[in-house]
C-alpha cells in the first residue's frame, strides 16, 4: 500500500469541513443584523517545489529542476461569518529537465495554471486556512528534435495556511504555505509565497 496525496481529497475536505462546523457553532443566539462584507485581493509570488520524483526518461542522461518561482492571485469574498469563498489562479512550474544525451540534447518543461474555487476560514485574527477545488491547466513544452507543446486539464485541489500582517485598514502582507495537487495527472507542488493583501471594497 502506498499513501498517495492526490487520493486524499475527500479526507482533506472532511477535515476542513469538520473544522468549519466547529468554528461555526454559535456562541450567541443568531442575530438578524447583517455584518460587514468585503472583497479582498491576494497577489504575490514565491518559490515552489515539486516534492515527488520528477518523471524523466530513465534511459537518457537528464538533469531535472524541481524548484522555481511561482505566483498566485486570489479574490476572496469575506461575508459576516467565518466561511469565505473566492477564486484563485496563478502560475507554477512543476518540474523541468534537460536531456544531456546520449544523442540529441533538449529540454522539457511542465507548468501548471490553477483555476480553483477557494474556501477559507480564519483560525485566529491572523492565521487562515484555505482549501480549493477545481482544475489545473497543465502544459508541457518540449524542445528536443523540434518543438512540441501539449496542454491538458486535470481536476485537483489545493490547501494553504496563511499568516497576515496588517499594514493598514486596507492593506496587509501575508506569508502562505500552499499545496497544489493536480489529482488526475498526479502532480503535486508545495509553495511558499508572500502576498500583498488588499481590501478592495467593503460594505
Amino acid at each position, binding site marked *: 500500500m502506498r499513501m498517495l496525496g492526490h487520493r486524499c481529497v475527500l479526507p482533506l475536505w472532511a477535515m476542513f469541513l469538520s473544522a468549519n462546523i466547529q468554528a461555526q457553532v454559535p456562541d450567541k443566539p443568531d442575530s438578524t443584523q447583517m455584518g460587514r462584507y468585503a472583497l479582498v485581493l491576494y497577489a504575490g509570488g514565491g518559490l515552489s517545489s515539486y516534492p515527488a520524483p520528477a*518523471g524523466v526518461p530513465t534511459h537518457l542522461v537528464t538533469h531535472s529542476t524541481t524548484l522555481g518561482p511561482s505566483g498566485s492571485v486570489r479574490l476572496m469574498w469575506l461575508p459576516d461569518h467565518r466561511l469565505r469563498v473566492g477564486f484563485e489562479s496563478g502560475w507554477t512550474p512543476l518540474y523541468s529537465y534537460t536531456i544531456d544525451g546520449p544523442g540529441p540534447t533538449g529540454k522539457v518543461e511542465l507548468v501548471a495554471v490553477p483555476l480553483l474555487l477557494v474556501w477559507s476560514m480564519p483560525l485566529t485574527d491572523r492565521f487562515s486556512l484555505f482549501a480549493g477545488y477545481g482544475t489545473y491547466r497543465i502544459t508541457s513544452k518540449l524542445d528536443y528534435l523540434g518543438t*512540441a507543446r501539449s496542454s491538458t486539464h486535470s481536476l485537483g485541489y489545493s490547501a494553504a495556511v496563511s499568516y497576515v500582517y496588517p499594514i493598514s485598514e486596507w492593506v496587509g502582507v501575508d506569508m502562505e504555505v500552499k499545496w497544489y495537487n493536480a489529482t488526475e495527472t498526479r502532480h503535486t507542488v508545495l509553495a511558499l509565497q508572500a502576498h500583498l493583501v488588499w481590501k478592495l471594497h467593503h460594505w
Partner: protein
Amino acid sequence: MRSALHIAPFLLLLTACQKEYEAPLPNTSWDLFSSTGTTPVDTRAQGRMEGVYAVAQGADLVGDEVVVKWSSTQVGMDTTYHVSIFCGTNIAYLSGEGRYLDSTLLLNMYWRTLANTGTGLCRLTITYGGGVRALWSNEPLGADSVRITGAYGIDADLPDRPFTLHYRRPLAQANDLVVLAHRCGGRNSDLLPASENSLEMIRLAPRLGATGVEMDVRLTSDGVPVIYHDETLNDRTIRPCGLFGPIGNYSYAQLNGLVRLINGERIPTLREALAAVVNETPLAYVWMDIKLTGSLEVIRNIQREYITQAQSSGRDVHILIGLPAQEQLSNFLALPDHANAPSLCELEISDVQAANSEVWAPRWTLGLQNAEVAQVHGQGRKAFVWTLDQPDYVQEFMQAGNFDGILSNYPTLIAYHAYARP
C-alpha cells in the same frame, strides 16, 4: 460529537490509500535446467507432447483440465521454442521452455493468473518411463501415456506445491479458429510481462496461444504510422517523461527518443510491428485497427510491402486494414485499389460488401448472429467477433456460434477452449 468529527477525517485519511497492483515475473533461473548436459527438445517430441491433460495435482490453480501447446519465435537464424499451458480457470497460463537432461524432459516455466495478480515458478519433468519413451516412439499416445510432474511456487518462492498432469487426448482436430490477441497480446491492466502494442508483446503473443494480433495504428506529427492505442500519451500507457497530450503532437523522432511504454519498450512503428509478425512469429493474422482519420495511402503501401515480404518467405499472413467506422470506410474506399486491399470491416454487411472486406467483425454484444455469419460465409468471407473476455460468453460463442475468429484480451482462455474442444 466533537471528538468524532476530529477522528473521522483521520480514519478517512488512513483508508485513502491506493493499492498499486503488480505481478512481476519470478526469476526462472534453474541450475539444473541450464546445466551443460541439457539439450533442446526436438520438434517431433514437441508435437507429440501437445494435447489435453488432466490435472491430477494443482487443480486449484489451473482447473481440472489444461492444454499443452508448443510455439516458436524466430530472431535471425535462431529459433526459440516455448511450451505453454492454457487453462480454463483463473484465466491462468504457464509459459516456459523445455530441455532434455539425458532422457528426462525438464520444463522450466512461470505461471500467471490474469484473473488476479498471481504469479510464480513452475518446474516440471517428464521421466523416460513417465512419458519420454512414449514421446520418442511411433505409437499413438494413449491416456496417461505422458505424465508431467513437478511443483509450482507462489511469487518468488521455490516451487513446493505439487503439480501433476496426465495426458488425456490430442488437441481438437481441424482447429481453425483464429485466436486474436487484443493490443498484440493483452492490456496493460492485465500486468503481462510486456506492454500492450509493443514488439515484445507481439513476440509473446504465440506463447499466449494467439494465432493473430490486433494492433492500433496512429500517425505521428510527421506522418509515421505507429502502434499505440490511446489518443494521448498518458500514465496508463507510458512511463512518466513529462509528455502528454495527443500522440499526433509529437514527431516519431521525439517519441522514439523520449517515450517508453509502461514496461520500458519503445513505441513501435507499423513497419517494425509487421516485420516482427512476418519475420519472428508464426502469427497468421494482423488486424490493423485504424485510429487515424486521414488518407490510408501510407497504410496501404506498408500493407502491400509486408504482404509481399511474407509471400516471398513462403508465409500466408493476412494483414488486414481494420475499418471501425464510416470515416475509415470512406477513406478506404478512396484508395484506388481498395477492392484488392485486404480489409476487415466492423460495420454492416453491406459495408463489408462495398469494401470487399475479407473479414466481417461485429462486436460480441450483438450476439451470435448466426444468420449473418452464414451470410458472410456464403460470400466467401470470414467472421471474427470482438472483444470477448468473459469465460461464460467465450464458451457460449464457441459452442453455439460459427465465428471463424475471436478477439480477446485473454487469448490463453480462447486457446484453451479452442484446443480442448471434444
